[in-house]
């Protein structure tokens, strides 16, 4: 038996083991800890990439825990009793985003974090969060999904608030933890309802049974409430700017990916779990409306921010709105207008990768500013471009990409969303374009305020490791912007089709024909 068949579980188990073993290695020697972290990260990324290649070339990959064979998903009688990992195009795509963000975060963290400020703790929490996100994205079991959701919640909140010598991070962590706890309970209640109704937790089996009973609808409402909140959707988004703005830069970038993992959960529920029961476009319109509201409200709030971290945080929340808009338009027209519904889905999913790279780059650049000046207050910053030349360039690139300026990646995905949402309602497109214009103004102001003008102070440039981490994300922005068709064809389209029309394949893979 080759290692290849165990790739789905190794992609989760290795970072989980890495998290628990890392403090032990740190006790021995910090160099051993760093070596362990590099090995775990490299192996995890290799597993995720290998898994994605398998999925994009051979189709859905399965892994059944505790079975004689990893592919034996059902017991005699055709009932899936064990925990099954189901990795389709969408899961593989999300895994790639998570791996990319994790790699950039770790590269940055080595030189950004100081030993006396909880470096070992931060790295441990990072690996725990990484494992939780990869678990959420590959599990085919609702209770398992809830468990990984909680793993990410605990690790994310601890990453926001572990710097207890400052006042604001613990407060932000407390607010986030309270929201995550209630959201997690909503998801758990929904899982309990579905288990009570059907006696199963397997997503494929539940999907084959759900028929739209009142209890099914209550469970869907609870799942929507919990997952929309954790994705940072207006009006339950307020924890997100607190958490993003107060988290250290290497954690903020992973929190962005964590938010996207919840968005993935929402799409999985709507398109796969309830894919056979949603016969009216009402839920699609709800997601579309909330997405439009999110992108506009967050962009308006970004206009008045004077803290660079808060400004980027609201920019990040507004990008969630674009992803929801793409997914919502797709869900609204899934049965009536498939011609542009799939385009909308591709736009929303493509924007996930682009958001991870652009917002991640902006958070890392803001971290360099905080490290150099001790503050992110735009009223106290200026002229940093004289000393932080590379960081200035990276921030400018990220800002243009976030605002959707061609030919960068943000434009490519927003273009797909604009074109498809226009066919549903031109008003949606007008609001989406307005959001981008607002963000352009906001980030031009931020760039002028922080990086241009006369030199106000002399600062040390960022170390090479941090520049390389930002360089990786900048390269992604340029590559996805200049050849978007290649990435859309080979990565985004399989992911969108896995949700769009892939429910039958998903069910057949798990339950058999």
């Amino acid at each position, binding site marked *: 038996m080759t290692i290849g068949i165990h790739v789905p579980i190794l992609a989760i188990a290795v970072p989980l083991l890495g998290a628990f073993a890392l403090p032990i290695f740190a006790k021995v020697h910090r160099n051993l800890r760093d070596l362990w972290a590099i090995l775990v990260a490299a192996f995890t990324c290799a597993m995720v990439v290998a898994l994605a290649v398998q999925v994009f070339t051979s189709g859905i990959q399965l892994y059944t825990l505790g079975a004689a064979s990893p592919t034996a998903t059902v017991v005699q009688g055709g009932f899936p009793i064990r925990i099954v990992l189901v990795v389709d195009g969408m899961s593989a795509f999300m895994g790639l985003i998570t791996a990319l963000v994790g790699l950039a975060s770790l590269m940055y963290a080595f030189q950004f974090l100081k030993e006396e400020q909880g470096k070992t703790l931060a790295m441990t929490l990072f690996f725990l969060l990484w494992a939780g996100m990869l678990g959420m994205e590959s599990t085919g079991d609702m209770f398992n999904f809830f468990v990984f959701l909680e793993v990410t919640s605990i690790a994310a909140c601890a990453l926001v608030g572990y710097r207890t010598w400052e006042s604001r991070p613990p407060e932000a962590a407390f607010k986030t933890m309270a929201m995550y706890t209630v959201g997690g309970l909503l998801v758990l209640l929904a899982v309990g309802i579905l288990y009570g109704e059907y006696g199963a937790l397997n997503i494929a089996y539940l999907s084959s049974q759900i028929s739209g009973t009142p209890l099914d609808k209550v469970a869907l409402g609870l799942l929507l409430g919990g997952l929309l909140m954790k994705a940072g959707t207006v009006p339950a988004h307020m*924890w997100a700017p607190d958490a993003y703005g107060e988290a250290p830069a290497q954690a903020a970038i992973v929190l962005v990916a964590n938010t996207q993992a919840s968005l993935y959960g929402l799409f999985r529920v709507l398109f796969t779990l309830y894919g056979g029961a949603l016969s*009216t476009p009402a*839920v699609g319109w709800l997601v579309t409306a909330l997405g439009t509201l999110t992108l506009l409200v967050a962009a308006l*709030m970004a206009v008045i921010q004077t803290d660079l971290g808060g400004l980027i945080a609201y920019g990040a929340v507004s990008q969630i709105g674009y992803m929801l808009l793409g997914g919502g338009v797709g869900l609204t027209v899934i049965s009536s207008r498939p011609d542009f519904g799939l385009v909308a889905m591709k736009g929303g999913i493509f924007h996930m990768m682009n958001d991870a790279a652009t917002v991640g780059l902006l958070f890392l650049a803001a971290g360099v500013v905080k490290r150099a000046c001790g503050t992110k207050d735009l009223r106290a910053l*200026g002229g940093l471009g004289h000393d932080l030349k590379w960081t200035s360039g990276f921030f400018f690139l990220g800002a243009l990409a976030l605002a959707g300026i061609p030919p960068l990646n943000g434009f490519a995905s927003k273009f797909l969303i604009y074109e498809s949402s226009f066919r549903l309602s031109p008003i949606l497109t007008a609001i989406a374009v307005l959001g981008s214009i607002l963000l352009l103004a906001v980030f031009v102001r931020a760039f002028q305020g922080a990086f241009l003008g006369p030199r106000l102070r002399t600062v040390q440039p960022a170390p090479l490791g941090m520049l390389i981490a930002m360089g990786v994300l900048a390269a992604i922005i340029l590559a996805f912007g200049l050849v*978007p*068709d290649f990435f859309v064809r080979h990565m985004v389209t399989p992911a969108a089709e896995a949700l769009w029309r892939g429910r039958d394949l998903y069910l057949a893979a798990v339950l058999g024909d």
Partner: protein
Amino acid sequence: MRLVTGQGFWSPLVWLALAAGVALLAWAFWFRGRRTYKAGTDQDMPFLSGEQVPEGAHVGGQHLYWGFVEGLRPFVDRVQAFHTGFLGDYMTWLVVLLAVALLVVMLT
């Protein structure tokens, strides 16, 4: 090299070619301009309505697009009003979101 949407297409290479053409045109205009600029003289000083500018003065980002931001102020004020920072309000809005989601799902 084209991203096809069903309604149209997006080609970054065509856009770059057009952008290069526009940049070339801008350079041509600039090249034909007057050449009286001298680096390291008073010409390097920022011009702020003819006022004497103190050394090290920086026009911060908050001053950019002032009219744009003021024009948006009525909308921004309304949006800002419900960003109170209180956890109780966060929970209230979560309940509102949950109620709307349940209402939409149950009524359809």
